[in-house]
């Protein structure tokens, strides 16, 4: 596990947070079978032999005022005989969650919102974080989650994983290695269902790992070489759930290998074939939110699917495998309700009207900040500042893989990029677009990061048009009669920036680049602006049809070593915006080299080699050292131009919502707010 510098000033280490950080690896002895509830009535719990939990009042038969071991709505169902008693639903060793602030009470609804069926990210971030391992709230360490043991061999090429015994799917069926086997062999490795095996399941040679089932709860996953980061992968949102997404007992009926009639049935139901039905009901993007019949391991399960109406509803999973310190089954909150609002301004109107309990997406930008804060009292919520993890709010990436050789040579020229960075008046950008608050920044690790290098973060940020002109003159870009420079081969310095103008920061980027247009014109560079819907923009980027583009500076903190796209030609989401083809060359291991306009240059190839070493280095400290070498090259090469980092994003936290625990990082890898453990959040009507 990578550990942070102890002295790194991580903002979540605030007084209120101490408890949530104190239990990285739950001690199995904390949770006992003695949690067992005596008698038929679920409301009277026996505390015999268990001094850790204060269930005294229940043992005394008081019952009335206390919450008991399970939610009243489930107790009713037990009473009616619809559901086995809580002790039979919980695993032998349930995970004990320490409350962030206080022990909660059952009940209530967590209201939040999505823009529609395609708005998966917020659903993932709020309720779908149940991997084998889980990151602590401060993201420093991993703790056991679905796995009750996770052992690596000496060279980190073989991992022995034990599933927590007695964990059940939301329909009561036990989770066993049979599910793991099905998930791996019949879904992840099935070429009909899965295009491109997920990278976390691939060994260093690019071949999928080997799965060996030991017994009902233990399995071994083996690679052909060391993959020390597999442990880290298994604690990330989607990656860590690859083995436990697929309830075998339910999904077998849709799989052609287990049901020969699956194809005909699917066609009869209106699907194109069994793959389409299988995908719709149990794979890929929307299955968890659109199929109420699908058994899951999440704290809340789908009651009313996303695509139906103006809201989606998720209800507590009666078989959820976690308890609070008193042994009461989590989650505290009965339901999660997603209001479906396509328009962000309407969603914001709901938010400041106090209709949402926790929300940190869609509208949590600078433009909405003042209104959100002004309405705190009226809406009954607090605006909590999150910790920004984007190195810069707008990084400018020239396409170093441009199809046009003339432009490509210009963009590959480091001096050219340095000159254009000096030509940007960053204070002006801050004043106009970021409420006059923020810092100048290059795409480099942020001050909070253990990789922070002040020089890297601030080089070439001072506004100096004279220096810019000088550098361009020296580099041979002669000023033409029309005031536009041209390279020696006659290539005019005239480009178009492609911007996804409907992203969260889209308008800011458009305005920002519109301002930079004038700043660059002053040094003889002509810029055109092309704002497009996100979908079209993405298609243009993927087809390598762009001169330059802008995006947030991912990987500034928390996920420096995985979201590497601003440091080297690699990383998720198709890789670096400044070199898509070199990124594809690396991540796809040359499978697409035919399309490449030019093989990677020396520095890029060097970074690729270093990253290969990084991925297979078992020692954490040595790994960091390798990554520092990658960063040193990035600093020297200055691949892309950063601008400024404005005020941090924020979250709306309802005054009745408890245990959120204050600020947390805002980051896609972190999956804000899931590591803050929403299952232990509760609604207080006081």
């Amino acid at each position, binding site marked *: 596990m990578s550990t942070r510098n102890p002295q790194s000033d991580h903002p979540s280490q605030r007084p209120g947070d101490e408890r949530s950080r104190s239990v990285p690896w739950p001690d199995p002895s904390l949770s006992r079978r003695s949690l067992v509830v005596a008698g038929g009535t679920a409301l009277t719990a026996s505390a015999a032999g268990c001094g850790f939990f204060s269930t005294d009042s229940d043992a005394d038969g008081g019952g009335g005022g206390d919450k008991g071991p399970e939610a009243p709505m489930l107790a009713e169902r037990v009473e009616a005989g619809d559901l086995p008693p809580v002790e039979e639903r919980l695993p032998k060793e349930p995970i004990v969650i320490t409350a962030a602030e206080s022990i909660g009470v059952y009940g209530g609804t967590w209201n939040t919102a999505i823009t529609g069926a395609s708005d998966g990210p917020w659903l993932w971030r709020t309720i779908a974080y149940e991997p084998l391992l889980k990151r602590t709230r401060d993201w420093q360490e991993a703790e056991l989650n679905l796995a009750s043991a996770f052992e690596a061999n000496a060279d980190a090429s073989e991992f022995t994983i034990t599933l927590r015994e007695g964990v059940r799917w939301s329909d009561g069926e036990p989770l066993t290695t049979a599910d793991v086997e099905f998930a791996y062999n019949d879904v992840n490795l099935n070429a009909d269902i899965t295009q491109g095996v997920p990278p976390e399941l691939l060994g260093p040679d690019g071949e999928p790992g080997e799965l060996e089932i030991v017994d009902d709860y233990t399995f071994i996953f083996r690679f052909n070489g060391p993959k020390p980061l597999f442990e880290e992968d298994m604690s990330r949102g989607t990656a860590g759930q690859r083995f436990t997404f697929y309830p075998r007992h339910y999904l077998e009926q849709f799989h052609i290998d287990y049901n020969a009639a699956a194809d005909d049935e699917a066609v009869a139901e209106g699907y194109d074939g069994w793959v389409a039905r299988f995908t719709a009901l149990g794979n890929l993007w929307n299955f968890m939110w659109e199929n109420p019949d699908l058994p899951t391991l999440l704290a809340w399960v789908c009651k009313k699917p996303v695509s139906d109406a103006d809201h989606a509803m998720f209800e507590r999973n009666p078989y959820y495998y976690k308890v609070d310190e008193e042994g009461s089954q989590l989650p505290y909150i009965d339901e999660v309700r997603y209001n479906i609002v396509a328009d962000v301004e309407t969603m914001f109107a709901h938010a400041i009207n106090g209709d949402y309990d926790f929300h940190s997406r869609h509208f949590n930008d600078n433009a909405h900040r003042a*209104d959100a804060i002004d309405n705190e009292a009226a809406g009954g919520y607090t605006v909590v500042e999150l910790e920004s993890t984007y190195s810069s709010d707008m990084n400018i990436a020239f396409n170093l893989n441009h199809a046009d050789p003339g432009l490509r040579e210009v963009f590959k020229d480091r001096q050219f990029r340095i000159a254009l960075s000096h030509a940007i008046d960053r204070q002006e950008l801050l004043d106009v677009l970021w409420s006059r608050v923020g810092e100048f920044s290059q795409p480099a690790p942020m001050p909070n990061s253990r990789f922070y290098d002040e020089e890297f973060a601030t080089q070439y940020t001072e506004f100096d048009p004279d220096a810019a002109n000088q550098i361009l003159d020296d580099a041979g870009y002669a000023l033409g009669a029309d005031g536009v420079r041209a390279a020696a081969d006659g290539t005019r310095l005239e480009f178009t920036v492609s911007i996804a103008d*409907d992203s969260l920061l889209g308008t800011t980027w458009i305005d920002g680049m519109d*301002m930079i247009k004038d700043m660059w014109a002053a040094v003889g560079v002509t810029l055109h602006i*092309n704002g497009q819907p996100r979908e079209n923009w993405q298609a243009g980027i993927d087809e390598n049809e762009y001169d330059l583009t802008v995006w947030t500076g991912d990987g500034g903190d928390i996920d420096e070593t995985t979201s590497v796209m601003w440091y080297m030609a690699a990383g998720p989401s198709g890789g670096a915006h400044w070199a898509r083809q070199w990124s594809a060359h690396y991540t796809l291991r040359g499978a697409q080299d035919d399309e490449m306009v030019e093989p990677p240059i020396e520095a890029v190839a060097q970074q690729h080699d270093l990253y290969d070493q990084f991925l297979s280095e078992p020692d954490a400290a040595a790994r960091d050292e390798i990554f520092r070498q990658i960063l040193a090259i990035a600093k020297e090469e200055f691949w892309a131009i950063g601008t400024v980092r404005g005020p941090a994003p924020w979250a709306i936290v309802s005054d009745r919502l408890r245990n959120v625990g204050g600020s947390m990082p805002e980051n896609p890898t972190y999956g804000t707010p899931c590591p803050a453990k929403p299952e232990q959040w509760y609604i207080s009507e006081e």
Partner: protein
Amino acid sequence: MTLKATDGAAVEPEADGARATASQRRLVWWAFKKHRLALISAWLLIAMLVVILLTEFIAPFGSRHRDSAYTTAPPQVLKIVDTDGGDGWQWGLHVDGYVSEQDPRSLRITYEADPDDRVDVGFFVKGEEYELFGLIPWDRHLIGPEDPDDPMYLLGTTTDGQDLFSQLVYATRVSASVGIIGVLLAFALGIVLGAISGYFGGWIDNVIQRLIELFMAVPSIPLWLGLAAALPAQMGPVTRYFIITTILALVAWTGLAREVRGRFLAMRGEEFVTSAMLDGSSHRRVMFRHMLPSFSSHIIAALSLSIPSMILAETALSWLGLGLRPPAVSWGVQLQDASKWSVLSNAPWLLIPGLVVVIVVLAFNFVGDGMRDAADPYKH
């Protein structure tokens, strides 16, 4: 409207003698004048035309002027007398400067007028250089601050520190011309096809009618969405603007074609048409020289009634992110910027473009109604 120049107004319209001998144009004008709102609207539209022609002169600042010190600043009041100076009344056109304050938590910047900071304003002041009609270089502006670096924001500024009044003037040129050019294109199509259809009848009529039905049955907004999304992304704002106009025209011609066809169908049997044909006039001459002019007022009416839907379509498309896109400036783009919560709560002046759209749309409608009422002066 050019009729205004004739001395028609001096003649008593209701006098029988004058009425009997007046030309059709004059009769229409008399009838039109009765519709007071239409008359006022006509003047408004003429004013708009002037704005379109003299955009750079009327706008106090250039289209790229941006003032980082004043983002989202409220409108200033244009004053003639300065009473705060301390030494009595001081005459002279001016506005008060701003003092600003920023809330440390919400980061909201609020502005107030600063009576001590007087910004002198003048007419025909020197400002940013431009080329009138794209030809004549000039640097005078109708109104502006005496010192071009001073803030004079009569309608306030946008969230990114641009003068709303100047932006609005520039947007008017883009949006109003989308409407007008689009409608003219649609009319060319509609009149030609409608006339041919109605004049010849038979299978030609049948084919054109089916075509019209086809266009009418395809719901228009999805059609726009599809076509607008199909535009190559690399297209510049100007090209995009012309293509959208053409798309709008392609959808809008059907209604007029129907109307024209109906008229031609009804008129085909009339004597003056038959005599023109017997006279040996060509089909084209009969159609466009004899028949069409007889209901030109109707066409003008229909024309002015369909411009508003063009303008509104532009705003809707831009709002959906499929029409003109910033940094191009148009009414649609401005309204898209204005349909934000923060505008309603703290910057209501940014809704002024909406007001302008409403006024222009109303004006076109009233002029169209007036024309339609007046189109058949013999009815009364």
